[in-house]
């Protein structure tokens, strides 16, 4: 048996992430005691209509989220309790709604920092309606082997160690979250464990007090003794003493009270619990509480350390008097285990997983990203630049300063070629149509292909082919003519021998000024000599120059268009921002720019 919460308790949790965490903990307990999940629904208006997945054993149970408690109880008539995890400024309203719901008989408020007046009003309201209002600041309620409401009991391992999978003989009432676990642990070590443990919360005026629950424990035949943890401040312990001493009680009462240190401390000092504070006229000291309990016949050990042995003594006496029959120890191996998450299983080496993807360039699992193994901040500290990052991520090579300078110049020279080229034009049209930056720039990027920018890769590919096959420029041109077509990287619409491209001259002269081998560039220039002899616009263009140089630097051919894409992204973003800043209008082509070479207007024939 148990009090307040049992296997029939069905809970709606009010509140967001903290409530979901509690539901997970409750799911762990239900799995341990082989009972169905006792959380039925959530009330959390921002997520109303969605569902929350709560792990239960190795399954995930989907629970609905409602806007109001009334909607939740209408959809789930079995709900009879609620846990409140709503923030302190809204918790009172939540509790009022729950108390007003005819189906909910238990409201346990976990929220801390609820105003004292609100707690008193809620307690009054609950009493009027014949309901239980537990908390605020409650850690929860746990009935061993039956139900856990909240996170009381802590992690799964502690539930098992404290034998909370089956009822014992001791009731527990505490004001403190941490101590509720400690007392349950002590009861399992020095006696046969607990029936129900309740956190009433450490506030000055909790909704329910020791006496409310002592009465219930007295009526619960499974509970043979109750351990209360009290502290200085207020008079709940004195009331418990008065209740216990009023007549002969079936249950034994064991108490431990903190706050003797107060005799040595400044008056009015604030302790961890709002309620733990001596009254203004010295009321509610630990000593007076202890005396009252002892006078009423309760067992109150001198120190916390003596609590375990005191519980053990009570337990042994009750076993001897046959009030308690010892429970055979459960086989721990037969208890349900909490399934491991994939993370935990990998960590403990229990499973081997075939990865879905493989990466060889970067890793950001540590405190910062590493590019090909080099931490980004270290690269910065040692003076490396953006071209080095490109080198590491595209080619897995840490370039020299000289090589990086070439890359930098390539990007600078290709960053933008004005508004008329197809990529920039499309970006501008998209910007005028009100398309956002990423999409407008992407639209421009889609123009990159064999006729615009996309020749870099192809040029690199064929120059490399020629060198690899040890072809002469003449043989190469013959091969291209016979098998491929125009040589990528050769030829320009407006530039020619007479009207040379300064960008090409600049790049070539810089690269040639360095002491590096440039077989592909040299080859491309030889090809140019032959082609320009035939037609003076068949010059080595910027795409071809960049391609030859990059292949010389060891870049894989599949990376080469990337330089054009990267560089042009800078320009396209600029064009988009420029249009945006001007508030440019939607562009529509003028009719006179289109040759309407369509048939004249004619009759539509009847459909045959």
């Amino acid at each position, binding site marked *: 048996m148990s009090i307040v919460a049992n296997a029939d308790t069905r809970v709606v949790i009010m509140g967001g992430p903290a409530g979901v965490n509690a539901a997970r903990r409750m799911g762990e307990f239900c799995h341990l005691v082989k009972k169905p999940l006792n959380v039925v629904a959530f009330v959390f208006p921002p997520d109303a209509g969605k569902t929350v997945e709560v792990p239960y054993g190795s399954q995930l149970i989907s629970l609905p989220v409602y806007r109001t408690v009334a909607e939740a109880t209408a959809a789930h008539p079995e709900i009879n309790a609620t846990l409140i995890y709503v923030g302190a400024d809204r918790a009172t309203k939540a509790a009022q709604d729950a108390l007003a719901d005819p189906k909910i008989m238990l409201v346990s408020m976990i929220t801390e920092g609820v105003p004292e007046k609100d707690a008193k009003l809620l307690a*009054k309201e609950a009493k009027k309606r014949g309901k239980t209002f537990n908390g605020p600041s409650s850690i929860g309620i746990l009935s061993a082997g039956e139900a856990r409401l909240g996170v009381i009991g*802590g992690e799964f391992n*502690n539930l098992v160690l404290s034998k909370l999978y089956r009822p014992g003989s001791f009731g527990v009432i505490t004001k403190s979250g941490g101590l509720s676990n400690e007392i349950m642990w002590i009861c399992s070590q020095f006696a046969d464990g607990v029936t129900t443990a309740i956190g009433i919360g450490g506030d000055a005026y909790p909704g329910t007090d020791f006496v409310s629950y002592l009465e219930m424990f007295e009526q619960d035949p499974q509970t043979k003794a109750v351990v209360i943890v009290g502290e200085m401040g207020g008079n709940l312990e004195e009331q418990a003493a008065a209740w216990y001493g009023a007549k002969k009680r079936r249950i034994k009462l064991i108490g431990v009270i903190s706050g003797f240190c107060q005799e040595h401390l400044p008056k009015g000092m604030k*302790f961890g619990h709002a309620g*733990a504070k001596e009254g*203004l006229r010295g009321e509610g000291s630990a000593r007076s509480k202890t005396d009252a309990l002892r006078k009423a016949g309760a067992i109150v050990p001198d120190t916390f350390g003596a609590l375990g042995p005191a519980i053990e003594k009570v337990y042994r006496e009750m076993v001897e008097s046959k009030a308690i029959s010892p429970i055979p120890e459960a086989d721990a191996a037969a208890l349900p285990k909490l399934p491991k998450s994939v993370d935990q299983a990998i960590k403990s080496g229990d499973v081997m997983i075939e990865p879905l993807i493989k990466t060889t360039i970067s890793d950001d699992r540590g405190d910062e990203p590493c590019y090909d193994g080099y931490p980004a901040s270290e690269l910065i500290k040692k003076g490396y630049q953006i071209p080095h990052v490109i080198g590491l991520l595209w080619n897995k090579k840490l370039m020299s300063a000289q090589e990086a300078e070439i890359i930098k110049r390539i990007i600078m020279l290709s960053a933008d070629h004005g508004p008329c080229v197809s990529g920039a034009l499309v970006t501008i049209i998209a910007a005028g149509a009100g398309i956002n930056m990423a999409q407008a720039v992407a639209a421009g990027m889609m123009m990159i292909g064999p006729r615009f920018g996309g020749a870099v890769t192809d040029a690199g590919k064929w120059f490399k082919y020629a060198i690899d096959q040890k072809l002469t420029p003449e043989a190469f041109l013959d091969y291209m003519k016979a098998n491929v077509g125009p040589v990528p990287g050769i030829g320009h619409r407006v530039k020619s021998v007479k009207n040379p491209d300064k960008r090409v001259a600049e790049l070539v002269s810089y690269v040639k000024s360095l002491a590096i081998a440039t077989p592909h560039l040299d080859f491309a220039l030889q090809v140019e000599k032959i082609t320009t002899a035939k037609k003076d616009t068949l010059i080595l263009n910027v795409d071809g120059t960049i391609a030859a140089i990059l292949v010389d630097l060891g870049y894989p051919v599949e990376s080469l268009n990337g330089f054009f894409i990267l560089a042009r992204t800078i320009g396209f973003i600029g064009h988009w921002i420029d249009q945006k800043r001007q508030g440019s209008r939607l562009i529509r082509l003028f009719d006179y720019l289109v040759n309407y070479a369509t048939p004249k207007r004619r009759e539509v024939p009847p459909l045959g």
Partner: protein
Amino acid sequence: MAKVLEGPGMDLFKKWGMAVPNHVVLTSLDQFDALAQANAWMRESKLVVKAHEAIGSRMKLGLVKVDLDLAGAKKAVTDMLGKDVGSGLTVSQVIVSEMVPHSAEYYLAVKSVREGADLMMASVGGIEIESQWDKVQHVPIEVGEPASAPALEAAAKKAGFSKDLVPKVVEFARKLHQCYDQEDAQYLEINPLVLDKQGELVALDAVTLLDGDARFRHPDWNFTFASEFGRPYTSDERAIMEIDSRVKGSVKFIEIPGGDTALLPAGGGASVFYSDAVVARGGKIANYAEYSGDPPDWAVEALTDKICSLPGIKRIIVGGAIANFTDVKKTFTGIIAGFRRAKADGKLDNVQIWVRRGGPKEAEGLAAMRALADEGFNIQVYDRYTPLTDIVDFALKGKS
């Protein structure tokens, strides 16, 4: 609970229609002349000057001066501001108020009790109230209900107020309860409540304890809360309060001068048992502290730093029960970082550390603590199988 000093306390009384003396609060002498210029009452009435601090027995310490003229008040302010009142605490604010000549002193208070409020009144007041406590009349007022006029009237008559004074006392008491209820107070006390020359009741003093948890619904609470134990908070205490106010979970810290045992326990409940255990074994605690609700490790590190900096400590007790959801490994990471820094600063020479804890990631957390021994820390680490406060017994063994 949160104590409010006299000035803002009186302002709250005034807000709810209770008469209080004119008053101003000063933090520097420079403000005095300007305030005297702006407030005719300062030039026209006799004045009272008091240290505006949470310091007990101000009268005894010479921090209350009465019956002053403007020049006398300025001198009193000059003397009081910045005065060292021992333990390194200085007066940083003074309150100057109008002296109210009066014929009689009474007592009026409202206290929070479980069912609602206990309104107290007596036709005696001032220091006499302590010796005549049996004359105090009590009117219970249920939470959510207004004070009942007939009940107040009966109490006022029983308290011995004269016939013409009864309606005035009842009205004042009604307003005091309204102030208590609407301002989320936990305790309000007027002692003395006096009858001025015009025959009107005036609250000459205000003890005001508000519910700090209700702050969210009182945007006009523009004052800071004062300590409730007879001295202002120290800068370290304020630093931890500041952290406490902006983190998940809680960190708490109060210094107690002269102690040899520093406490760094987890949990609002267990922390007091640890304090008790030290005192019971004849030790002297150097502080009260507590962290709970899974605070971030940096907050625990800041708390550790303050604890390691307590003067004259011989041992540190890192105690705690079995946590529900506080991550032992993570919070211990903060404590360990604090310990390392303190050790590097030479603060932990000859200081023993005792640890006992359980909860999520307890094995990893305790192992990390245990490993500190290899770094030269004098540290003893225990797990859940050692009863909660036994480490205090071990730590103080050989003593007493």
